[in-house]
């Protein structure tokens, strides 16, 4: 076992997951590839969504991959950072909106 939980070079080995379950692995990668194709959304828009989600998922591999993908597409630093703020806003919003649940509970319990 490696001494750290994450190893940057493991990203290149991602495709190997098909070796232990070929059909499911291939289906996943086919699906994955299809998702990022130009569609109703542009590939560029999808790249920015992926970057934001990579951060909310806190996946270092995905952050590596979609930062590089963004650079290759000519996406600028402010665009990347704004995308991450969108993710962060939803994350914090998701936390704070539960405040209403807390308030409801307090209001129910208090006399």
């Amino acid at each position, binding site marked *: 076992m490696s001494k750290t939980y994450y190893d940057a070079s493991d990203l*290149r080995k991602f495709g190997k997951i098909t070796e232990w379950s070929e059909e499911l692995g291939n289906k996943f990668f086919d699906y994955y590839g299809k998702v990022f194709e130009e569609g109703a959304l*542009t*590939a*560029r828009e999808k790249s920015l969504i992926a970057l934001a989600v990579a951060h909310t998922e806190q996946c270092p591999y995905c952050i590596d991959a979609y930062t590089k993908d963004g*650079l*290759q597409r*000519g996406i*600028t*630093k402010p665009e990347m950072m704004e995308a991450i703020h969108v993710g962060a806003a939803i994350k914090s919003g998701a936390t704070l909106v539960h405040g209403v649940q807390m308030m409801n509970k307090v209001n129910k319990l208090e006399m």
Partner: protein
Amino acid sequence: MATKSLKARNNDIANTSRQMEILSSGIFANGELPTFAAKIKETNQFPLRPKKLEILQINLGYMCNQVCEHCHVDAGPDRKEIMTIETMQQCLEIIKKTEAHTLDLTGGAPEMNPNFRWFVEEAAKAGIKDFIVRSNLTIIRANKKYYDLPEFFKKHNVHVVSSMPHWTRGKTDKQRGDGVFDKSIKALQELNAVGYGMPGSNLKLDLVYNPSGAFLPGDQMALENDFKKALKADFDIDFHSLFAITNLPISRFLDYLIASDNYEDYMHSLLDAYNPAAVENVMCTNTISISWDGWLYDCDFNQMLNLKVASKVKHVSDYNEELLQNRNIIINQHCYGCTAGAGSSCQGVVA
């Protein structure tokens, strides 16, 4: 930002044999990655052979008014290698005989060669119909004596191919030097003013995009659309096509890759994107590159690595096209730069 060439800085990488050593050791020596020769053998594309000769690419000298971070020529104001009029005359003899239909002038800044205009005029008389000048744009604004270059280009119907790494100031200046973006914009507007790059115009103006860092270029068409939209909206600039070019791991870009600890990852990226279909049309199969001192090479990159053609004919002084075309193209690991993704050449993608 550096203002001197690697050569003037006595940098280790300025030594071409040191570059060859780097490209042949490490991950390629220990079997982690296959050599380029091994890779193209998998698809029976070895040895790489020339097809019909279409383009003569002549390097008029390594002198340049810019010192770009990624430059594979290691060009700059301190480089004194400039093609003499005698070598130009030898090139003109070739131009009269060659089957090639396109003359591609590069550098450095080719316009800085004192005999640049004379050479273009003589080459036109010698029968060249398609001229390409690889202009860095800022040269047009560098000195009064260059201000009329757009008119000169127009007079000879020169196809202008210009570097422009991004449509934003920050990215452009980081790669090419402070102030380059504003000067480039001004130069593009002047080219537009005489008719270059306008929709439907015969005066061809194409831009070259190459990534400003250790990553590969994205889809050429998508980048072209982004460039067009932004340059039109921000500066009312028109151009024809965008060529997306991959940075090859040689010279200053190799120095950068190693210094920034990106070399191995970059080579992996090139390998991951390897495309055998691109091998079929790499530019060395239809181009001959001639250096400022008249030596012959398979491409501009081999020129910078000092890898002369594998032929009895090695110099313009004893040029023989039939003999020359019967040769094997010299390859090495830097060639992966031309075969990644949709491929890369001085004319953009090839597959």
